[in-house]
């Protein structure tokens, strides 16, 4: 009898060990979504012909894990016939030519200066800022309840000779 009870106890403790707590897949879903948006913006916007040769450059200023996500998942992709090149840049006004410039929320106060420094260069400026469009960005990420969406200022794009396709216009939460 005691032997049977002992066996049962042994079984119970072993069975108790058999279950373990699952691990969190600590993905930065925000960075994943933003990276995907930037890639899609690149495909849905038209640049002037002279900027359709060489690499297609996406520069990232700040933005946490965004640069890492872009490199991990989009570095080997193309926009048209152009190979994507991802660059991480520090907070600076000395910005090399790029097709897309993302400015993270931590640099939102710096955004107006960047916009001015880029003058009329055909660079799509994407911000993550309160009043980002008013500060000069063409596209600005916004959170709508729990989802990351974007708003559009057409003039801030066309002033830089960028043509925004109808798909982006129709999907933006706000179009100015």
């Amino acid at each position, binding site marked *: 009898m005691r032997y049977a009870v002992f066996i*049962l106890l042994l079984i119970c403790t072993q*069975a*108790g060990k*058999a279950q373990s*707590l699952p691990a969190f897949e600590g993905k930065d879903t925000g960075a*994943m979504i933003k990276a995907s948006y930037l890639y*899609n913006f690149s495909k849905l916007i038209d640049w002037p012909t002279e900027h359709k040769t060489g690499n297609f450059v996406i520069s990232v200023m700040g933005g946490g894990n965004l640069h890492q996500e872009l490199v991990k998942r989009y570095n080997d992709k193309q926009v048209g016939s152009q190979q994507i090149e991802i660059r991480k840049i520090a907070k600076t006004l000395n910005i090399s030519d790029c097709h897309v410039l993302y400015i993270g929320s931590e640099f939102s106060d710096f955004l107006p200066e960047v916009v001015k420094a880029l003058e009329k260069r055909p660079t799509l400026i994407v911000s993550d800022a309160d009043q980002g469009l008013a500060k000069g960005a063409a596209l600005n990420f916004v959170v709508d309840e729990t989802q990351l969406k974007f708003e559009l200022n057409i003039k801030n794009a066309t002033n830089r000779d960028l043509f925004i396709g109808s798909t982006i216009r129709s999907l933006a939460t706000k179009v100015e």
Partner: protein
Amino acid sequence: MKRNQTIWILMCIFLLMAGGNTLRAQNVEELIRRAYVKYDDKDYQGAAAEIDAVTDMKKGAGNPLAWHIKGFIYKDMFVHEDGQNPKSKAREVAVDALFKSMELDSDDDFKANNINALKFLASIYFNDARDVIEARNKQDMPLADHYYAQYRTITERIGSDENLDEKDIMYYLAMATACRKIYETDREDNAEYYEKSNAFYKKVLDVDPDNFPALYSLGVSYYNKGASNLEKLPELDIQDVIRTQGESMQAIQVALPFMLKAYEVNPERIEAIKGLKYIHFNLHDHEKHEFFNEKLEMMEKEESGKD
């Protein structure tokens, strides 16, 4: 004459029947004795044949001793001849026979021994369920349910003082973990195991609504599903990005109440605090993300201070 012939025939028939009954009674005892002798000699097959003959007889079928001995013969056949093979039919016969003996045993002459034998067989069923769960072979998983159900039925019927709620929780958590791990080996091929895993965690909560492992695990499960759904983003066009994001955020939102409850149940568990930090970050609730992030940093500081 005819009337006398009829009476004579009837008397013969009566005598034959009375004599036959006595003979049959002697036969039942004799067969039981013979079965027992063979059992004692470890001739389990021979013993089984003898005792089966008894329990097949009308007289024998109502004899608690016959069923008691049958139970032990088949129990030992299961152990010594079948090597405790989970698929052994002998075990099932043993269980049925021992319960039948208990049913007929109005004086409880064999009760203690019957119960001990049933407890032993129940524990083997529990073991078999555990083995199936640990092997994580998809085809065999339904067997775990069968073995556990057998263990449970036996334990309940013998009126054991084992806490079956606790056993149920242990079993459901083990099955949930096994299904989750099967799912993780190949999320496409084994997609159904995601929901099976969640279903077992929810069964735990039916028994114990404040069970931390189940609450936490469901939180992680829904969060991971939402997050891993975004892996396909690089291949999607922008409309599908928006749709997929919606699906993922929905799943992560489902995770939130489970993780909150886990935290409520045990606010000192660092896993729940980390979980809430991740979930709020990904739902873009920066205020709550910061709250849990600070709490986590404080706890980690305290932990490293203790080392």
